[in-house]
């Protein structure tokens, strides 16, 4: 058993025995050493005193050379049996007297050595001076046997040993009894502690012995046991209630979880079934969620998009309005665009950029976008239809005006001349003149009605477009105007014209009107040039109604006629708009309106430019068909 493991009883006894043993040993040893030292000192001092007495007494014997007297003085040493030899040396160092007589002078030192005594193994011997006054007369030698001293020391040692042994025995017996005072309460405490730790029985209590610190310890231990017991009970109760609480909480949590799942699923369903495009981006503008509409519209897969940034998924959005809007929303400001063109796909969208906040910190942006392309398109169509309606309305208004004015004018003439004819029916020549006037007015009325009819028919026409060779159309027009061309002495210079998709009768009417205009508004021999070229892309922007994706022909009819003020270049295409009076230049004011109608029917544009007296240029822009330019007709 290790020492630290041995019982406290043994430890206590060991402590007591070791302490008392050490004390006893030290005491006896120091006493013994002290004895030896003092014994030597005392012995030497006594010897010195004896020597001094002998030396003092023997001065006269030495001074007056009386060795017999010296020996007599030395004989006094008989009183001390321990002094075994003594001798007097004279001033010259010769042995003068000796004691005892029986001892041979050979046993004495031949001559005195230095003064003083020294211990040998068994003797104390030495010299001391013989002095009278301040004059040294000789030296005294003394030798003392120490066996008696040592015998005495042995006796002391024996006694000390006996005392140690007895004391140790006494200490053992006493400690055996005394240690119980301390060890018994501790052992009892230890026994109780063992019972507690082995059986976990906190109801046992240690027996208290006395009111000292150990008694206090026992009390404290018992109090502690009591507290542990109480706390154990408390913990058990607490545990039970805790378990109950945990069960309740778990149940609540499960319910909440189910509810949450249900809600989540609900929200997910709403988001994914929404026709709106929904996306969530984080602070680094990375997609964290997108819905089905998003996937379908942009033709992407959720796995390709989520976790990547906007500009990674759609590089074309870099530095566009979308990116700026998202940044703005990340700063906490909602952004809304009622109409915005998409940077990724063709189309229009209404978009909301809504900052997602958590305690004032923006952690992302909710992007909700609604495809309004179809609405915009329909809107455009509506706008167009509306414009059409407005113009048609205007046409109707003009038509009413014609009905009330242009048609009434020849009718009024017919009424006036018919009245005059009734009053002057006897006057043959007058009658003839009035009848002619009536005839002319009615003829003009017929022309007007025919023109109006043809215009209105044009508006309603639903004929399909066919490939039409414009060269053939122009040849037909030239032959129709053959007589007038000859009368006016006109020249028509015409380049090779293309084949276009169109309605041949309408295209014939178009060229007939343009050429008839050029022949009509001219005071000299008319020169008419017809040119054609592909409309340059740069010029295409001049005409807003043209499609950007379509190629066009530009056909110009240039004359050297009277021209018109450039401010009228739009007005002249309005129905019944005449720039010149009817007396000088005949016409109904419908021709150019008819031309515009025809060109618009062919998705083209017609414009005019002129200065008074410098001729006019009519430019007709028509869409190209795939066939390209046709070969000129044989004529």
């Amino acid at each position, binding site marked *: 058993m290790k020492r630290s493991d041995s019982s406290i009883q043994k430890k206590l006894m060991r402590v007591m025995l070791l302490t008392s043993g050490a004390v006893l040993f030290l005491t006896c040893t120091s006493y013994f050493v002290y004895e030896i030292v003092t014994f030597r000192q005392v012995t030497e001092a006594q010897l010195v005193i004896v020597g001094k007495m002998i030396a003092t007494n023997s*001065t006269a014997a030495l001074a007056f*050379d009386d060795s017999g007297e010296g020996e007599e003085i030395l004989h006094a040493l008989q009183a001390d049996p321990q002094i075994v030899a003594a001798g007097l040396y004279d001033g010259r160092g010769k042995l003068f007297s000796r004691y005892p007589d029986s001892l041979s002078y050979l046993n004495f030192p031949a001559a005195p050595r230095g003064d003083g005594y020294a211990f040998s193994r068994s003797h104390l011997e030495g010299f001391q001076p013989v002095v009278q006054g301040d004059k040294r007369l000789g030296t005294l030698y003394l030798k003392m046997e120490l066996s008696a001293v040592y015998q005495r020391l042995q006796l002391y040692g024996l006694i000390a040993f006996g005392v140690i042994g007895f004391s140790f025995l006494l200490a053992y017996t006493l400690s055996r009894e005394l240690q119980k005072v301390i060890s018994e309460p501790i052992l009892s405490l230890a026994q109780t502690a063992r019972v507690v730790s082995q059986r976990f029985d906190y109801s046992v209590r240690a027996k208290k012995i006395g009111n000292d610190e150990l008694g206090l310890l026992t009390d404290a231990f018992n109090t502690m046991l009591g507290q542990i017991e109480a706390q154990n009970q408390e913990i058990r109760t607490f545990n039970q209630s805790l378990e109950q609480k945990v069960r309740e909480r778990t149940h609540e949590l499960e319910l909440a979880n189910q509810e949450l799942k249900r809600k989540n699923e609900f929200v997910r369903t709403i988001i994914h079934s929404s026709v709106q495009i929904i996306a969530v981006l984080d602070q680094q503008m990375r997609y964290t969620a997108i819905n089905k509409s998003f996937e379908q519209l942009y033709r992407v897969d959720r796995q390709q998009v989520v976790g990547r940034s906007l500009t990674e998924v759609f590089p074309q959005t870099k530095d566009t309005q979308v990116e700026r809007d998202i940044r703005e929303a990340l700063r906490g400001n909602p952004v809304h665009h009622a109409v915005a063109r998409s940077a990724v796909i063709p189309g229009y969208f209404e978009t909301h950029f809504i900052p997602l906040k958590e305690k004032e910190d923006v952690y992302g942006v909710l992007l909700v976008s609604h495809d309004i392309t179809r609405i915009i398109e329909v809107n455009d169509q509506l706008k167009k239809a509306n414009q059409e309606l407005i113009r048609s309305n205007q046409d109707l208004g003009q038509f009413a005006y014609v009905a009330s004015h242009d048609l009434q004018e020849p009718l009024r003439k017919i009424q006036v001349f018919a009245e005059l004819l009734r009053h002057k029916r006897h006057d043959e020549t007058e009658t003839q003149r009035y009848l002619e006037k009536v005839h002319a007015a009615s003829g003009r009325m017929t022309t007007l009605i025919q023109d109006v009819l043809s215009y209105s028919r044009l508006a309603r026409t639903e004929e399909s477009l066919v490939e039409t060779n414009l060269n053939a159309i122009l040849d037909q027009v030239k032959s129709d105007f053959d007589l007038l061309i000859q009368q006016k002495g006109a020249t028509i210079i015409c380049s090779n014209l293309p084949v276009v998709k169109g309605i041949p009768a309408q295209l014939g009417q178009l060229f007939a009107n343009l050429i008839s205009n050029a022949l009509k508004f001219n005071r000299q021999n008319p020169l008419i040039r017809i040119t054609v070229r592909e409309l340059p892309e740069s010029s295409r922007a001049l005409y807003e109604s043209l499609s950007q994706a379509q190629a066009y022909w530009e056909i110009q009819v240039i004359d050297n006629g009277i021209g018109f003020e450039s401010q009228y270049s739009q007005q002249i295409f309005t129905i019944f708009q005449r720039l010149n009076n009817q007396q000088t230049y005949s016409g109904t004011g419908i021709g150019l309106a008819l031309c515009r109608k025809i060109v618009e029917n062919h998705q083209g544009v017609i414009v005019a430019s002129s200065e008074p007296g410098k001729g006019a240029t009519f430019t007709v822009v028509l869409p190209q068909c795939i066939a390209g330019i046709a070969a000129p007709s044989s004529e």
Partner: protein
Amino acid sequence: MWVACLLLLAAVGLHAQPAPSLEDRVKAVFLFNFTQFVAWPEQAFPAAEAPLVIGVLGENPFGTYLREVVTGETMGSHPIVVEHYREGKDLKPCHILFVSAGNTHRLPEILQECQEKGILTVGDAPAFLAMGGMIRLYRQAGKIRLQINPERTRAAGLTLSAKLLRLADLSVP
């Protein structure tokens, strides 16, 4: 140097004495030793440094030996000197006076005078004590022995050490 030698020769020639015998040399040492065992009264010395004088009267058996023995010796604070007196009338104040055996002329008076002056008188004549001396030195079994008249020394005011008295023959003739 030559002068010193001449002076020495003259002195030797003047005394013309043989070298002292062993016995005389022992006696010279005894004379000196008496200074260690005898106490003189205070008034015997006029000053603290005054010398202790050993006088030799008449014939001087010691030659220069006694002077050699006492050279550098002292008794307490008193240096020891030796003086020599040819006759009784030459006597000067001293502390120890040695009278050799041959000098008997007017001796009792001189000794009496010395006793009165507190001078320790030492002699080796057989009748020295009878003539009024204080210490007689005599030869016995090859050794020099002492005979002392303590009454006279006491009368002279001298104190002799008991140790000295123990050695001596105190029987008064």
